[in-house]
């Protein structure tokens, strides 16, 4: 009976009211951002050198962090999805730790290991003269640390969803494990890797806590967009709003892309 089914269903007020409040809670701050934006002076503000510098640094570090995550995360995801070994559950749990860890704690931990007096940092300093904290490379490291779990989880999910019997078919045709990985597994999970990379990039772009703790807040070198927003808020609210708007536009664009290309297709 389509006619009666199309009749508006009665929604209990006890559910409807909190639902609408929740929606307002999510949308209102964003609307506030748009309402308070200094639209008239926007072009000039966008062209300010420190805004452009922060934006350029953010895009650069987020992209480098994503590349680093792909390099390390895809093999890690493959290991978790395809190789049975003792302690696999533990490794999987460890991988997800940065997801729930407050980023500031991550920054402190990075500092303890990669700092000048840290276990790895000391060695890097003495052997190669490389210092990571408070450098652009440090920003990339901090962002990658926080964003890597997003990539690993997305790619591992894609690998588990992909039929491993294609890899068996490849083996019977003479392909070794590496060739099978590059010629069969990677093409099969390419959409999953792309989705993971976008999530990873978005997370790296918004990274604040670990970055400010491990890399500090030096304009042009380690001051990314989120850091610039925080700093601007204390001196010039309008500048903070402009910077926030840019981040909002980038985030929404990514979400739209992700929906259309991967979420929608699946």
């Amino acid at each position, binding site marked *: 009976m389509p006619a009666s089914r199309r009749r508006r269903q009665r929604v209990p007020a006890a559910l409807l009211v909190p639902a609408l409040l929740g929606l307002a809670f999510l949308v209102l701050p964003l609307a506030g951002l748009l309402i308070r934006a200094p639209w008239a002076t926007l072009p000039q503000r966008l062209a300010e050198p420190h805004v452009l510098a922060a934006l350029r640094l953010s895009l650069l570090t987020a992209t480098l962090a994503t590349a680093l995550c792909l390099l390390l995360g895809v093999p890690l995801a493959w290991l978790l999805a395809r190789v049975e070994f003792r302690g696999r559950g533990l490794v999987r749990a460890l991988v997800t730790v940065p997801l729930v860890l407050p980023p500031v704690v991550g920054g402190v931990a990075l500092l303890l290991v990669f700092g000048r007096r840290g276990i790895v940092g000391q060695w890097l300093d003495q052997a190669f003269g490389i210092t990571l904290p408070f450098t652009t490379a440090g920003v990339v490291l901090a962002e990658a640390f926080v964003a890597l779990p997003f990539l690993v989880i997305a790619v591992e999910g894609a690998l588990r969803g992909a039929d491993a019997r294609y890899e068996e078919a490849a083996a*019977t045709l003479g392909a070794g494990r590496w060739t099978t990985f590059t010629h069969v597994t990677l093409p099969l999970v390419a959409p999953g890797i792309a989705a993971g990379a976008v999530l990873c990039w978005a997370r790296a772009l918004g990274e604040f806590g670990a970055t400010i703790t491990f890399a500090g807040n030096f304009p042009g070198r380690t001051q990314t967009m989120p850091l610039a927003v925080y700093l601007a808020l204390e001196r010039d609210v309008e500048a903070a709003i402009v910077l926030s708007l840019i981040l909002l536009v980038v985030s929404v664009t990514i979400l739209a892309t992700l929906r259309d290309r991967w979420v929608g297709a699946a």
Partner: protein
Amino acid sequence: MMLDSRLVVDRGAFRLDIALSVAPGEVVALLGPNGAGKTTALRALAGLQPMDEGHIRLGTDDLTALPPERRPIGVVFQDYLLFPHLSALDNVAFGPRRHGVRRQEARATALDWLTRVGLADQAAKRPRQLSGGQAQRVALARALAVHPRLLLLDEPLAALDARTRLDTRAELQRHLTAHPGATVLVTHDPLDALVLADRLVIVEDGRVVQEGDAATVTARPRTDYVARLVGLNLYRGRAHGHRVTLNNLTLSVDDQQDGEVFVAFRPSAVALYAEKPTGSPRNIWAATIAGIQRHGDNLRIELAGPIAAAADVTPAAAAQLDLAPGRTVWAAVKATETHAYPA
């Protein structure tokens, strides 16, 4: 003998333990019910299933410890597993490429194989654009393109509809006949096995219960599964000359035997009567009708009683006898219609 193997896979509750030998050019069908271990055996031959014991020798080569990519095999999987991101041509070229053939040459080889299976015009298509029958032929071309010395096929026709199956079966038979290496085919369809294979190996519950050419296996089944497969009534009993004692019935048989024997007869050899028949010597027993099914142009009557048996009667005869489940009838089989052979 080209392939000489003993395959043992122990999974606790289930144990596969079969010996399998195949001559060059020979096609052997592993036939058996679902869960008998046929596919496990095939995967063990391919190196995809680790073995607990046994050996696999192909000619003078010992394959037992080799990973699948180093075995001279070709596999056609049940659902083909064509790589979805590659064209039909590149699917077939994949094997030659992995065997060190250069790209252009591998593609030429692949096109040649696609031509042989009649799909040269579909070379650029992706697997999802191919019909079931076409995908099956691409899978066969892909497996043959590496010139395997051992060709393995897992239920190669199971995924096809009845019409496509008929054409594809004939085509597959042509290619299997032309294949110079050993071929092992897994199927649960007796027709596929009879048409495609030179020899049948019946696997039940992880063991080989019977093997031989189609004529022997169909004429002298040794298990209920095989008997049902070829449509025979099969009993095991003790023979003294022309008489075979079953649990609840003694049958007169034509063949003279002594000791443990199988007795087999066709359902069409069973005649049904409303009254106890008299006259020529034959085996007669009272039976209860347990079920009636269509069977081709006739009706197949399932009989309960001292022995479970199937009888084929014409619809006219069934109407005349007023056959219905639960009714008691007299079943009769002439001694000359039975076949007794040592168990």
